[in-house]
């Protein structure tokens, strides 16, 4: 379905509003294909079409919500009735209210590429098979490819409200991923590689394969070192995961509800002066770029930390109103939930040294290439974190032996202040934050 048809449905729902009611309808539709190959055969080929609607009603200062995984006309009415009934049981809150047009023009982004529609099933299968073949052939120590996938999606959505919001969007996306197994002696290690784009010709099979081979083979022979305090270099993929967590602490919702460790720190020096952190979904380079947020407001560039100083929190309409400011265009949601607040395309402003130079300046450290259990190991409220990690030792400015079964621990507060360098290798990744090499001093590494 195209965005105009979805908007028509959203407008129809909004038109059912009664006096004194605010109604917001979010309607989405997507078509997805996924091919998984294994040992030269198609293991599975999935084609899927899904749609849904989420309806928010605000009446008498109370809010109710309902969603359904279909766009059948009778279900739309049922869903609205359910959302309306749900308002009765919510607590009144003077700040409840839908977004209102704020005059900010949405950026012109080219997120929809018709070439994806022309790409046939056979070509998708061939691309996944090629990926598997390249991984398998990449190194004699590769003993298996657990999965090699091609996937794509075509999504459209529309938002309409009784407050005058009309927003539509559509985008195409595709990806390749491979999970590899490398073995030497009786030791096995795993790796992964991926490539993402808006249409298939932008996918790089060779890079996805090479990364899958390297990530699996580089950890062979890794041992557990003893515990000590070291300087770490986070690889871009790892930095992006940390940025995602730091971003969550800068949401206006966390601040208002007393769950942000940065709540009272606007204007403070919270990071080293080389740290400038920006959330910018208007950047067309970002895989998660988008022209409108989850409430239909134009997205915008928000600088959160400038030269180490905390400058801003992100807001949706509710948190903006309640904190006496306004939405920063940062509502995030699917159709099955009410809008939260979050980063959409977060990145550090890069420095001028490539990772090789950063490493050359470190006597004793670890290049952290992978973290695990980050979400269970970070408490975004207290800032404490401890995460499983693996990577390569750095000795006298050079990469040395691989290490595994270590944890690195610190607090988010201290880590931001201890950033010693930001690399020049900014990389956009298929997540809401970008990667860049990051040097952090004085991190506790636990091992044997």
């Amino acid at each position, binding site marked *: 379905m195209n965005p105009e048809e979805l908007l028509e449905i959203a407008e129809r729902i909004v038109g059912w509003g009664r006096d004194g009611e605010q109604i917001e309808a979010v309607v989405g539709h997507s078509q997805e294909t996924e091919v998984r190959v*294994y040992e030269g*055969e*198609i*293991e*599975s*080929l*999935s*084609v*899927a*079409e*899904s*749609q849904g609607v989420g309806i928010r009603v605000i009446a008498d200062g109370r*809010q*109710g*919500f309902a*969603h*359904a*995984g*279909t766009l059948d006309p009778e279900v739309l009415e*049922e869903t609205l009735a359910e*959302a309306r009934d*749900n308002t009765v*049981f*919510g*607590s009144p809150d003077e700040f409840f209210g839908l977004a209102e047009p704020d005059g900010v023009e949405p950026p012109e982004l080219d997120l929809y590429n018709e070439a994806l529609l022309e790409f046939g*099933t056979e070509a998708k299968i061939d691309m996944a098979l090629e990926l598997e073949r390249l991984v398998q052939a990449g190194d004699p120590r590769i*003993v*298996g490819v657990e999965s090699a996938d091609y996937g794509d999606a075509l999504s459209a959505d529309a938002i309409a409200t009784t407050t005058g919001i009309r927003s539509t969007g559509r985008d195409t996306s595709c990806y390749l991923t491979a999970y590899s*197994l490398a073995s030497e002696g009786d030791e*096995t*290690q*795993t790796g992964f590689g991926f490539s993402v784009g808006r249409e298939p010709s932008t996918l790089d099979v060779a890079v996805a394969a090479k990364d899958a081979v390297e990530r699996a083979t580089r950890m062979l022979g890794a041992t*557990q070192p003893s*515990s000590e305090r070291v300087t770490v270099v986070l690889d871009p993929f790892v930095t992006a995961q940390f940025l995602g967590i730091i971003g969550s602490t800068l949401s206006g919702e966390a601040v208002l*509800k*007393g*769950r942000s460790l940065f709540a009272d720190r606007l204007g403070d020096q919270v990071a080293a002066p080389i740290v400038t952190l920006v959330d910018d979904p208007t950047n067309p380079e970002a895989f998660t770029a988008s022209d409108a947020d989850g409430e239909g407001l134009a997205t915008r560039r928000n600088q959160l930390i400038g030269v180490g100083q905390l400058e801003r929190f992100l807001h949706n309409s509710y948190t903006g109103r309640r904190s006496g400011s306004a939405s920063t265009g940062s509502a995030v949601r699917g159709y099955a*939930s*009410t809008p939260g607040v979050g980063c959409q395309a977060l990145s550090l402003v890069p420095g001028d040294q490539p990772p090789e130079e950063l490493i050359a300046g470190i006597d004793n450290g670890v290049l952290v290439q992978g973290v*695990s*259990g980050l*979400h*269970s*190991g970070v*408490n975004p*409220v*207290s*800032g*404490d974190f*401890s*995460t*499983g990690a693996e990577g390569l030792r750095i000795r006298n400015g050079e990469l040395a032996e691989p290490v595994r*079964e270590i*944890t690195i*621990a610190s*607090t988010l507060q201290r880590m931001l202040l201890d950033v010693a360098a930001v690399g020049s290798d900014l990389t956009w990744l298929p997540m809401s934050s970008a990667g860049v090499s990051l040097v952090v001093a004085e991190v*506790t590494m*636990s*091992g*044997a």
Partner: protein
Amino acid sequence: MIDESVVSGTLSEALKTGGEFAEVFVEDRRSSSALLDDGKVEELTSGRTRGAGIRVVVGETTGFAHTSDLSEAGMAKAARAAAAAARGGGGGHQIVALSRVDAPAPNEIEVLPETVAKATKVELLGRADEAARAAGSAITQVSARYADGRRRILVANSDGLLAGDDQVRTRFAVSCVAMGDTGMQTGFESVGRPIGFELFDEYEVDELARTAANRALTKLAAQPAPSGSMPVVIGPGGGGVLFHEACGHGLEADLVAKQASVFRNRVGEQVAHPEVTLIDDGTMAREWGAYAIDDEGRPAQRNVLIENGVLTDYMWDLLRARKEGRDSSGNGRRQSYQHLPMVRMTNTYLANGTDDPQDIIAATDRGVYVAHLGGGQVNTATGDFVFGMSEAYLIENGQIGPPIREGNLIGNGPEVLAGIEVLGNDFAMGSPGTCGKDGQGVPVGDGTPTLRVASMTIGGTAA
């Protein structure tokens, strides 16, 4: 939910291009949830999804399509899409006439949540908020969530299977923030069972709220977690998730078949202390991971995975089992009709031991006592895992000492199994969990008695 003739017609359509096996999975799910945060009931949410997933198998290839259109035409369209992916079979496969076989439910449902007034559900939230805030003036924020869901499924396949299940789950969770001189700390507690609103005859939400609040308050006084390797005692019910991750995933036959399990080729081997018995049991009444049938129509089973320290079997879904010429173990599950099933756990637990838990602690000179583990993850190919400790204490001179702040626990599955030294006689099931695999989440349960592992690595910040 859907007419039987539509189902058999869809199966015939699905086999037209030469498929060897076809399956229709129909799901109708209703959910309701209510969230209290920051002293206010933010909103009630109601959800409804309904649809069907159709798969067709030819040789090693599975074609899959799903639709939210359950009409005859909608189903036929999805069947053709699934069949197109699995072209090239020999053909001539007929569907066997469907005959309905329903398995017994793990337990009765007394009070269907949909029959309970919304106001009654919301009232629980206010009580939890009040009780948590009353636990101490340092409690600065409380959020409480009530959620219920009813999932009706119907599975039919070309072997003639037709089975259905009506799965009800009810859950309540409280999370608190406490503020002290050392900053903010959090505490969490949840309960959930595959039962209806009678859950609240068994559990007082006030009590849950106090437990969550006390976890946060306790941590205000906590010292940084130590770092390095040391003995770890895991409390009853608090660490089952560790065995779910560190051992259970490696015993899933799909991962084993792809060489992605550290437990491959090890059936029959002594992998743990002779007192260690690991069981996955989908029939366990009133436990979070229980059901009558799995999402391939197979009745849930009790499967012994490790018996007296010896690896006895893996867990199986339909396709893996067919390949090996055996029966599925009732572990084929999927998140929704939009997903393909795969091998998943249900309620996975380490069976009771014989030792007095007090003696286990007393015999530990220095180490860490983990009362409650948070989330974690495992690399099944290497066995390496990581877990967050959400409530833990130092053990000093055989006694539980001061609380420690959050830190990760890391180790290796086979090494931890081999490192279990002693098991207590105080078995308990843990908190309801959601297990993620390949992007799909399903409800699971876990449990353990008190036990001691000779050595694990604690990732704290203390020198």
